[in-house]
């Protein structure tokens, strides 16, 4: 299976967008090589603004560009966007509903060797709590590219969460991305696995293993955490009666929490959350970290078996 990093697909889609839409502008904070905005910068230098190592100003400037009718994509690492510039996102983007696309790369543990300071496991929680914010977590390259184009068409603030490592391409070239609909990647009747981002391909792996053990698992790719596709979540929770949420993020406040909130109010269902268990990360290879922090296909399999007992 071909592999693509979601940030690479974002960079490519951005360059395509630049050619299609004059109003698209891109901002970065001295990380354009890593966030992959460099391709856009090279092709459209007039519409690219490097703000230097100044994330508050990055978000604030993007807000001003949006207020003047531009469609700004502001990129830096997730920890510096959602973390460092939280109040700027809150007061200058979300509250005034400005059309800023915050495309944050290097989210989660898979940042790897840079360690805890750079591994942002709380951004979904922070961004999801903001009124007016749409939160999108693509699972693979094709979805990240499609999501980039889709959020550009969507009016309003968006947080697009992207990753560092290459992930298997789950979706084909013909994938019809709907920003507000969670695609069902695999049907199943015993347990529903809701996953986002890096965990989606692992959920598919887990479902394949579970099948061999006689457990039928559905896999739903919840790429948009907010607004959540409640209808699909409830349908699969009802159908399976057991659910797992899997995310490369803290178990506090992310996808698992969003699903638990809906189920708790409308369809109480036995549930297991797979995610970073309220701790900071550390340096290591992405695969080693995922193993150590329990973000693996095996962990999902174990969770499903536990639910089946």
């Amino acid at each position, binding site marked *: 299976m071909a592999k693509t990093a979601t940030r690479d697909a974002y960079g490519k889609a951005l360059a395509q967008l630049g050619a299609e839409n004059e109003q698209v502008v891109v901002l970065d904070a001295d990380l354009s090589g890593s966030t992959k905005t460099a391709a856009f910068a090279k092709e459209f230098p007039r519409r690219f603004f490097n*703000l230097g190592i100044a994330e508050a100003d990055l978000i604030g400037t993007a*807000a*001003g560009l949006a207020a*003047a009718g531009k469609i700004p994509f502001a990129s830096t690492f997730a920890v510096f966007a959602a973390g460092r510039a939280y109040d700027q996102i809150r007061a*200058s983007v979300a509250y*005034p509903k400005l059309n800023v696309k915050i495309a944050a790369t290097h989210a989660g543990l898979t940042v790897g060797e840079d360690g805890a300071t750079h591994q942002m496991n709380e951004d979904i929680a922070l961004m999801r709590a903001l009124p007016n914010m749409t939160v999108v977590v693509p699972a693979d390259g094709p979805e990240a590219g499609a999501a980039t184009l889709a959020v550009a068409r969507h009016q309003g603030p968006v947080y697009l969460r992207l990753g560092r490592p290459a992930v298997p391409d789950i979706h084909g070239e013909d994938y019809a991305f709907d920003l507000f609909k969670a695609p069902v990647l695999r049907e199943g009747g015993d347990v529903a696995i809701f996953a986002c981002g890096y965990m989606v391909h692992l959920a598919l792996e887990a479902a394949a293993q579970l099948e061999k053990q006689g457990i039928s698992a559905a896999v739903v790719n919840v790429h948009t955490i907010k607004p959540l596709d409640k209808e699909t979540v409830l349908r699969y929770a009802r159908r399976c009666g057991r659910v797992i949420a899997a995310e490369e993020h803290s178990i506090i406040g992310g996808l698992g929490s969003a699903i638990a909130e809906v189920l708790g109010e409308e369809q109480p269902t036995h549930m297991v959350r797979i995610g970073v268990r309220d701790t900071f990360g550390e340096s290591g290879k992405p695969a080693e970290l995922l193993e150590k922090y329990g973000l693996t296909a095996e962990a999902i399999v174990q969770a499903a078996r536990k639910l089946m007992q």
Partner: protein
Amino acid sequence: MEEYANLRSIAARLRRHIISMVAAANSGHPGGSLSAVEILTTLYFKLMKLDVSQPRWNQRDIFVLSKGHASPVYYAALAERGFFSPEELLSFRKINSRLQGHPDRENIPGVDMTTGSLGQGLSAANGMALAAKLDGQEQRWVYVLLGDGELQEGQVWEAVMTAAHYHLDNCIAFVDWNGLQIDGEVSQVMNTSPLKEKFAAFNWHVQEIDGHDFAQIIAAVETAKAAKGRPSAIIARTIKGKGVSFMENQAGWHGRAPGQEQAQQALKELEVE
């Protein structure tokens, strides 16, 4: 002097609105509103290109009140300029009012940027100035008003760098240099001086003026517009609480509403103009 009689009488009206609004709400920020009256009066009644029937007209000049707590002077200027009825001013800070404690661009006609969390307005102004440049609108000006205490925010200096780096000569920043913030004198809380030298060192064009003198404000803006290739800072010496004897130069009147009697006295003092 007669030349500015009209601006002077508008300024007096804005001051009376500020007192009435803050008194009616029993909440709000009179000190830093009163210090900025002449600056907003000059911008809204003399300098800015606007169309009140189209608040988002894409050729208009822009104003960002970075020190968003001075919303009373902002709303008073917008109302007097015709963006909404001055009668609405008394709904300031009340439940279900459009006139939120801090400016809200979504709901208040004429407000160009939502502010209130200090330190963010210059970044937004820069973004709007960049957009005007991209759109080839050379005759569109973006004004921003910062507080002297607000300059303690690091983001301001990020944005000061950005404006110079991108040669935003369409961006004109006023500093309301009233010397006071909440906890007392700016020089005591966290000194921001020397301002002129700081802005100059960041490659800005800088002027220092009397922020209550219409002629100086107008001249400074004209000079700023002629400074090609560089953003302009106009450091305006002002008196916090200007026009109300018991509020002048008193940090305590930063965010406190006058009682009924105090409001009556203030309104009386402001009548003579």
